[in-house]
């Protein structure tokens, strides 16, 4: 698959939130505004791409050659947690004010199912190192699109008159469901006609 194909697939067609249904909790439960959304998405995309690359290295040089594929889950979980801890330390030293302002919960991102889900998809897809990196970035981009749309919908719904028993998270989940139906329009065949040869 070409890099454009990977980007379109993992950001729109196979959107990690609206198609794979991973990372729903941070998307519908995050109370932050657009600034926090951008920060969380950027951190998630960075962590996803680095984790996908680390997973590729683990799979290619350790798990598959030694026949240890059954240890994939613990190896990937610990790799993601270690990378998140490392990123957290680096970010706290390099851009502490940005972290505080955006309110990016790196520890939470580290172990959410979206990050591990992308890592598993990339590892099982048989991608190269560069493709794995792009898969992570594209999935992070898809996460950004979903999170931005859901934050915008949530901000709009807060000022609307809605049934009291649905106010808050139940209505956010229903909105996410309707958005997931809308994303079904990003069909692989439709996009392949738009971008011949992707």
């Amino acid at each position, binding site marked *: 698959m070409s890099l454009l194909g990977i980007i379109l697939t993992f950001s729109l067609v196979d959107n990690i939130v*609206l*198609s*794979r*249904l*991973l*990372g*729903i*909790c941070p998307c*519908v*439960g995050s109370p932050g505004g657009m600034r926090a959304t951008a920060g969380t998405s950027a951190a998630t995309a960075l962590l996803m791409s680095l984790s996908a690359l680390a997973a590729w290295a683990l799979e290619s040089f350790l798990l598959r050659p030694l026949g240890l594929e*059954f*240890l*994939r*889950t*613990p190896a*990937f*979980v*610990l790799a993601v*947690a270690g990378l998140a*801890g490392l990123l957290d330390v680096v970010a706290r030293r390099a851009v502490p004010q940005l972290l505080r302002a955006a309110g990016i919960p790196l520890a939470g991102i580290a*172990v*959410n*199912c979206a990050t*591990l*889900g992308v890592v*598993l*998809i990339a590892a*099982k897809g048989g991608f190269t190192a560069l493709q794995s990196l792009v898969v992570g970035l594209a999935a992070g981009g898809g996460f950004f699109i979903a999170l931005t749309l859901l934050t915008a919908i949530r901000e709009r719904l807060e000022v609307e008159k809605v*049934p009291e*028993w*649905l106010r808050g*998270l*139940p*209505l*956010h*989940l*229903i909105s*996410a*469901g*309707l*958005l*997931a*139906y809308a994303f*079904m329009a990003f069909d692989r065949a439709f996009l392949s006609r738009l971008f011949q040869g992707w």
Partner: protein
Amino acid sequence: MNGPSTRSGGLFRNNPVAVMLVGLCPAAAVTGRVIDALWMSAGLILVLLLTRLSLEILKAFSFPGSGTGHMTDWLSLLFLASCFTASFELVLGAFAPDESAGLGIYAPLIAVNCIVLDRLAGRGSQEPAGPGEIGRSLGQASGLGAGFALSLIVISLIRETLGSGTITLFPIGSFGGTIAVGGISLAPARALVYAGGGLLCLGYLAGAARLVRRVKGAERA
């Protein structure tokens, strides 16, 4: 809280999916068929119970970092949960390969399920882990696991019945495992088995749980 009341709390009053709204990803993703919901619930209950039991045993032997809330505690929790998840994947793949394929990447994701991590990481108690403490901890875990299973079964029954017109269970003897629901199977609402259907059902279930709590609260008042 003692054991039985904790169990019923996790099942209804503090249901993890419908009330506490954690562990939403598998509740929306693997509820297209009842059998997938059953296997996912079984996996989560096993991992939750085994991880909590192991942590309590480590605490009883004063393993460094256990129960202190430090980074080592967090990493040991992640390591234990992911090892038990990998074991569940292996057993499921060996005995029920079709169901294992049905769960796909959601089986390994039990390791980072919010219910497993939130409820276990939130403990960090310094109390010595006696038999009573272990029993109470396991009672709480089994209540949460049962609550998760109940929510998944309800959502999957609604989605599969209305969306496919069938109920898929375990094949036993001459019973193939699939029950066709008369009438609906001829013209099912296919939209419910897609990704959006899972989120819609989850949203309405959470809303219904809130409505029930309000009605009960008003009755008590």
